């Protein structure tokens, strides 16, 4: 295969991967962040302790985390059809990607929030701050470096998951590598695809590390 033949394929696949990753990252944060916050505040000694709610949330997260992504992807096909209307294509892949990554991100959010000292939270309570103020103005801002680090890990995981999502017709770089590299023995294209993936992951990680480090400096 010549470079002229590979180039449009690569561009298209990269666009699909980007689309899957951006949308699923968005939804992962949308669901995972509140879930992580809920895990912390409902815990014993938290701002809104509730043992039953905490156990249920913990269980949901653990189930989500223990399912292999490949299995999850197939298992949620009916749900995907319900939400997106189709089970094929880039947008259809966003549903399993989000379901796979949100519990993972929620745990990372939980870990980051637990780093915020009890002292700091109690000082805010002593100043008369309510629960929502403490979540919004103390817990999240104080944990922001850890949150960015967690988000970076999650995006990298999503890039890797999205390669598998090619299986359900989501397209993307992983799908390209499998279809051409594996099924048609186009080794060059496969190698180039892998390099592109590595570069993207590197870029995301470096960007995430830089931002996290800058936020942690204070």
């Amino acid at each position, binding site marked *: 295969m010549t470079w002229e033949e590979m180039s449009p394929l690569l561009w298209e696949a990269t666009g699909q991967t980007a689309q899957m990753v951006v949308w699923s990252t968005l939804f992962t944060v949308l669901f995972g962040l509140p879930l992580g916050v809920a895990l912390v505040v409902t815990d014993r000694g938290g701002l809104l302790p509730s043992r039953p709610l905490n156990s249920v949330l913990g269980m949901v997260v653990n189930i989500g985390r223990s399912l292999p992504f490949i299995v999850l992807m197939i298992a949620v096909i009916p749900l995907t059809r319900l939400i997106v209307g189709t089970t094929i294509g880039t947008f259809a892949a966003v549903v399993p990607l989000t379901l796979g990554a949100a519990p993972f991100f929620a745990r990372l959010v939980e870990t980051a929030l637990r780093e915020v*000292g009890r*002292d700091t939270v109690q000082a*805010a*309570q002593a*100043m008369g*701050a309510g629960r929502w*103020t403490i979540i919004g103005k103390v817990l999240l*801002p104080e944990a922001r470096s850890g949150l960015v680090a967690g988000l970076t890990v999650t995006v990298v995981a999503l890039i890797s998951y999205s390669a598998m999502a090619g299986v359900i017709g989501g397209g993307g770089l992983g799908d390209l590598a499998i279809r051409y590299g594996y099924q048609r023995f186009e080794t060059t294209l496969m190698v180039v695809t892998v390099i592109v993936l590595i570069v993207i992951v590197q870029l995301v990680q470096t960007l995430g590390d830089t931002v996290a480090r800058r936020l942690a*400096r204070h």
Partner: protein
Amino acid sequence: MIDVSGLRKVYRDRGREVVALGGVDLRVRQGEIFGVLGQSGAGKSTLLRCVNLLERPTEGAVSVAGQELTSLGRAELRRARQRIGMIHQHFALLSSRTVAGNVAFPLEVMGAGRAERARRVAELLELVGLADKAGAYPGQLSGGQKQRVGIARALAGNPAVLLSDEATSALDPGTTQSILALLRSLNRELGLTILLITHEMHVVKGICDSVAVMRDGLIEEAGGIAELIARPGSRLAAELFPLPDPAPGDVTITFTGRADEPVVSEVVRKFDVDVSILGGALEEVAGASVGRLRVRLAGGERVAALGYLAERGLLVEEAR
């Protein structure tokens, strides 16, 4: 200003009951600096945290500035807390906010507007001597500077009362002195009532008007410092002026604010006794000089001599 009565706090820790406070009564008067002393685990922090209800008492009543706190609803309690400042041993500042942002936090909680916040923050930083550090982050400050930020933050709501849990314990002696001086001047100039916990005697000597000594969840001794010192058998007096254990017959004389009167030589002359001085200490406490002298009296009219000293208003204790 602070009234605590019948305060009990029982923690349930894995089925085991820990009585942190076993019925404490405490009265802190308007405008005074009240120190709470006691060994580790005596319940000092628990007591302080019950005053702004960070800890819910198991039993008892807490009232601050005439308002009974235990009966307040959630929103009312939050409003009441805005008028009770608190400073912490490890400062508990928000590391993601600048100095100005930290001081602004309680003002945001109170719902103050942007202009009002900026004005108050500038005023408060000026008050604690940190006007030039407004844009710095806590990570860039020394311990003493951090505690000044903590104090500015605690004063944001014009509190009537300031609670301090070991606020100087993490600081070196020089910095401790400057923070104590700041607290003293806030007390004098703003009429701020301060309830502070410490395990350092020199903090008590330095700035407290009154003191309570806690032990095993109870208050063992409490009162104005001068009054406690003049009380026979006071543990506080013994701790403020550590003297060696007396032998039987040794006499301990405690005097306040009269170090210049020649009582000892008078006694020697009038009663023909021999006085040997075994030990002594002279301290500035609550603005007055207080001394304790350990002496041995022999010969002459020993009993009459002791009676005379007591008559002169000195506290005379004879070891048995």
